[in-house]
């Protein structure tokens, strides 16, 4: 062995040792909280019987996964899940980044603080409560739409919870309304972190605000945008259960446009309570997300290595 190299390795090790020490607490936590329970993934392939224990239960191969594909609704729920999430990812991005940029431009300190607090409000209200507020708008008997808005426009009252066509818009609106403020804070933090000298130089060069946003702000927060998007892509097969279950009031007539994988699994297992089948659904969702993230990360890496997740 080349002595020089081993010395070099030792100094490298010495140089980086403090970094490795730093990450111990976090790593230990991840091992305990996330990795150790992963032994439970075997549950998805077992017919659990607690007399035999988790390990002792019989292997049943992919039987727990079958119900996800055997139904005639498999196409609908997959389509709904993906399309909704794709729209959500894009809209959240546009709205959150847009609002963050505007907030950053606001000069009035007091108002800026006010806006920042207020846009967080929807995120803090639980989905059950939101479903009630939506019902206040859309109720057949005494909803705001049917009693006030539609008569004003000279239109007939509508049975909103029986009209699948309008729900994609309603759900998208609610999702953006609820989540954009929260995401906006991430982008705002990134924008604030940008070195002010870039802007000063640009202003001296006579660049307009719009140009500054396009040339400085957006490129500099691109890594944050990338990572937020990648993480959202990883969860594309999951959906906000409350949004799709509570808000449409579990109305069957709306399933064509509101049924997603999570609600399908929930409804299907409500009676059975089968832990094997619910684990199978979770594993399936994870796997799809995993593949998609690997793919998108690969693409990001091709474009800009710095921005890739790993």
């Amino acid at each position, binding site marked *: 062995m080349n002595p020089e190299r081993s010395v070099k390795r030792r100094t490298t090790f010495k140089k980086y040792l403090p970094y490795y020490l730093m990450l111990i*607490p976090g790593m230990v936590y991840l091992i305990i909280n996330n990795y150790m329970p992963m032994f439970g993934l075997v549950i998805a392939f077992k017919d659990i019987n607690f007399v035999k224990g988790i390990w002792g239960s019989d292997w049943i191969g992919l039987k727990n996964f079958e119900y996800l594909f055997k139904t005639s609704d498999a196409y609908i729920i997959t389509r709904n899940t993906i399309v909704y999430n794709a729209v959500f990812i894009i809209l959240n991005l546009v709205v959150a980044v847009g609002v963050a940029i505007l907030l950053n431009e606001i000069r009035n300190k007091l108002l800026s603080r006010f806006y920042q607090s207020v846009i*967080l409000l929807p995120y803090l209200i639980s989905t059950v409560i939101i479903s009630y507020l939506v019902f206040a708008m859309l109720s057949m008997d005494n909803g705001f739409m049917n009693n006030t808005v539609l008569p004003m426009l000279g239109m007939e009252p509508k049975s909103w919870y029986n009209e699948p066509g309008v729900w994609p818009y309603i759900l998208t609106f609610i999702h953006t309304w609820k989540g954009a403020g929260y995401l906006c804070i991430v982008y705002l*933090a990134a924008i604030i972190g940008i070195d002010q000298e870039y802007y000063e130089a640009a202003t001296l060069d006579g660049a307009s*605000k719009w140009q500054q946003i396009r040339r400085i702000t957006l490129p500099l927060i691109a890594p944050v945008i990338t990572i937020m998007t990648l*993480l959202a892509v990883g969860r594309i097969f999951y959906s906000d259960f409350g949004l799709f279950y509570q808000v449409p009031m579990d109305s069957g007539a709306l399933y064509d446009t509101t049924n997603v994988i999570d609600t399908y699994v929930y409804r299907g297992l409500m009676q059975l309570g089968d832990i094997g089948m619910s684990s199978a659904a979770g594993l399936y969702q994870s796997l799809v997300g995993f593949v998609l993230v690997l793919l998108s990360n690969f693409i990001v890496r091709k474009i800009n290595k710095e921005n890739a997740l790993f």
Partner: protein
Amino acid sequence: MVNQETRAWQWIGHTILWLYSAACILPFLLLFISSITDETTIVTNGYSFFPEKFGFNAYTYLWKESADIFRAYGITIFVTVVGTAVSLVITSLLAYPISRPDLPLRNPLSFFVFFTLLFNGGLVPTYLIYTQIFEIKNTIQALIIPSLLMNGFNVLLMRTFFMTTIPTPVLESANMDGAGVFRTFYSIVLPLSMPIMATVGLFQGIAYWNDWFNGLIYITEPKLFSLQSMLNRIMTDIQFLSTNSALSSQSAEALNNLPSETFRMAIAVIGVIPILLAYPFFQKYFVKGITIGAVKG
């Protein structure tokens, strides 16, 4: 000319943000007004900004439980403060090393963090580990440690922030001055990272404040209920009782002890208001950057 443009931007900004704010406030206002509406009026007329009849039943009911509610507030505040603080420490300690481009094994380590965001063992295995091995059931740690203490998402967010906003030359010069890794982290990286620390702190704070799930699965002792687990229990009880057909004749009686509709709204109100009050504390770290820019620009 620059001035004119700036003024135009201000106008557009304020207009959009006012509209957006209104969309956020009005539902909340409706929520609040509903919580002080007479229960029967809600059943008859639905929710309204201008109810026929006010009623404070929900709050008097809550007031009756005030001893429990104040204790629950205490637990929530303790859990939120301690949890957020510990969480910020271990999150940043993990995010910083993997943000260094030259760190050997950096990518596998990032992947190790990322993987936890997608795959999990599920509830039962997690429960087994925390209750059987760490014997965490019915302890205050159960509200702090499981699931919430550190989130891979926040780690990756912070990592990205460290990578993009802390100029490598600054770190190198610190190194040159002979400052150790910990020292550099403490005296250079952290002060420069206040916006992201505030963001993650806020996210963690909200997560702890709003968490009811740990309470649901690890706590059966009423003395340890946090505010949200207590409120959530009341809510899920109402929900369960009003949808369970097998027990309907009995549950109807149980249900009638609660002013259900206004009560839910009141619960939402008392759960949200403290966060709103605490939020300006986090904002302090946001506004700083803006004012410097504003003064200079």
